[in-house]
């Protein structure tokens, strides 16, 4: 279909560093044939932008003082031994070797992976669905958008307490509903130990994380959706594209950079989640909900063995670093080479 091809060409031009939107349809095709948008080539001729250094300087200063330095200090913690406040001696990777033999730590790795993967998948699927719905809802916009945002907006420390009450062994609202509310009580589903059974507890923690993170996905994807010009859809419609085709060939590809970065950020946040597990289960039952952050806190702060705590917290760092680099490279590749 010609219109769809035009649309894809248009997508290619948008993905360039400079978005050259031109009225004449011919020029769209023209831009596609060149590897770079015109503006960029023009600027390259002028040489590097030295005042760029000045622009990033404040950020660099803050990040160096408050992140880079503490990070290297934390790295030093993980490669040395000694309790908090004592002088430390280099011991190489012994802390890492120690935790790899700790069965609680191995369980923590399993828990964290299950937790993060399930939560992020749920968030992206439902976030996308919700964003699409929000886009289509033209009435009562403020109500829908506002109410959907609330999980992300309300203070986490306090909303998690609310969830704790909902899953509480004695007062669980869900158990009460299953027992007293018709027609649910006809199903005869017993009172569940939401936080007392091993894998159920982990599922509950992932569920609360999903509840909290869904608005983040929905709103950011929504912003990406709204940025897609309506002309593309109209062009596709005149060609008779079905809703599914529109979604698959226009929406998804255009959303890919947004989806990629949102997923990346969310994965990083989710892997480092502390509050939910700390409030709901403190790592139990039988260590089935310990995540890196909570176990690192237990070993490092409660047990004063900051070397172990740092080793646990930094364990994923190399892997995440590689993932971040690859992701960024992928996003950059897409933007530079258009179609």
């Amino acid at each position, binding site marked *: 279909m010609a219109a769809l091809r035009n649309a894809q060409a248009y997508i290619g031009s948008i993905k360039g560093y400079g978005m050259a939107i031109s009225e004449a349809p011919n020029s769209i095709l023209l831009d596609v044939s060149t590897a770079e948008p015109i503006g960029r080539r023009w600027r390259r001729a002028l040489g590097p932008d030295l005042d760029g250094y000045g622009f990033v300087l404040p*950020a660099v200063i803050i990040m160096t003082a408050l992140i880079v330095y503490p990070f290297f200090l934390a790295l030093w913690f993980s490669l040395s031994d000694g309790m908090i406040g004592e002088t430390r001696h280099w011991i190489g990777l012994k802390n890492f070797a120690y935790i790899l033999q700790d069965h609680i730590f191995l369980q923590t790795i399993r828990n964290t992976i299950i937790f993060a993967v399930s939560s992020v998948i749920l968030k992206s699927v439902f976030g996308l669905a919700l964003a699409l719905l929000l886009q289509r809802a033209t009435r009562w916009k403020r109500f829908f958008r506002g109410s959907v945002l609330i*999980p992300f907006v309300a203070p986490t420390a*306090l909303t998690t307490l609310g969830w704790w009450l909902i899953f509480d062994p004695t007062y669980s609202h869900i158990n009460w*509903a299953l027992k007293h509310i018709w027609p649910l009580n006809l199903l005869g589903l017993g009172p569940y130990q939401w936080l007392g059974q091993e894998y159920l507890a982990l599922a509950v923690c992932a569920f609360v994380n999903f509840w909290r993170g869904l608005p983040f996905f929905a709103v950011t994807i929504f*912003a990406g959706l709204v940025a897609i010009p309506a002309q593309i859809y109209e062009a596709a419609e005149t060609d008779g594209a079905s809703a599914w085709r529109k979604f698959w060939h226009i929406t998804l590809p255009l959303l890919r950079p947004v989806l990629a970065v949102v997923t990346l950020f969310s994965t990083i946040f989710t892997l480092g989640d502390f509050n939910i597990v700390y409030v709901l289960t403190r790592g139990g039952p039988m260590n089935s909900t310990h995540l890196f952050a909570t176990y690192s806190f237990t070993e490092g702060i409660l047990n004063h063995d900051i070397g172990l705590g740092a080793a646990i917290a930094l364990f994923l760092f190399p892997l995440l670093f590689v993932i971040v680099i690859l992701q960024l490279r992928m996003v950059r590749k897409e933007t530079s080479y258009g179609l």
Partner: protein
Amino acid sequence: MASSTVAVGVPVQVKTKTPTWRIRQSVVTYVSLIPYVAFALFPLYITLVTSVKTKQEINNPNLSPFWALGLTTENYKYLAQYTHFFDHWMINTLLVSVLATGISVVIGILAAYALARLRFRGVEAFGVAVFVTYLVPTSLLFLPLINVINFLDKFLHIRDTYWSLVITYPTFLIPFVTWLLMGYFRTVPVEVEECAYLDGCGRLRTLLTIVLPMALPGVICAILFGFTLCWNEFLYSLVFIQDELHKTLSVGVVTELIRGDIYFWGALMAACIMGSLPIIVLYAFFMDYYVSGLTAGAIK
């Protein structure tokens, strides 16, 4: 859905857009949204209901948790009378969030512009570094950060005040703001910038007068999200501030309303409602600007 027969090249008539189809579409949309809204609001509803229940009602497991039989404001009164919720913690949290977000957005705007537009050695590395800083969890970072805070405390009294938070919150705000704004700045057409540049505008002026207004929804979005992150933060606030009058909401609430093995659920839930209210109001107010800015930007 009636869009099946597609002959290539032959424009299909718009029989799909009949009024009944439209109504059916919107009904489907709104009905599908209801579960999402219910899901999002459910805990808040429980929180609200619990906050107006008497203690005895809360403690009784046989009564419905979804409805309050006797309404009471004693929990809110407790919050106002016996804790520093309204007179100190709320103000502290507001100040911290506003200041930290303000600083981070300003610095983030500059950095994001550099990453999005400018070319110089190290821009790639800097871009990567921005992401990488997120990989270190705050539950580990806070301990080394104490050293930095104590060092700065030698010159300016920041320990035990909210200034320590204003300085440390940007560590997790700036990367986020930078990423967010990078994307928005890229959507501003290069030609417009080049025009300004040719007209003699310096880089900074271009940024402030041309790019920023066009990327305003992104900036508002960054401000809103940044504010939220500040409002919710717990760990840094806990270890940097112990003075009761300078605490922020989340820490103060947990200290006062959880004593050993006794949880004051009614007051805790009331605190949750009151603590979320300012942010909800903020979002409700700015949502319109944010979204209308987005839609306006799309139809360029």
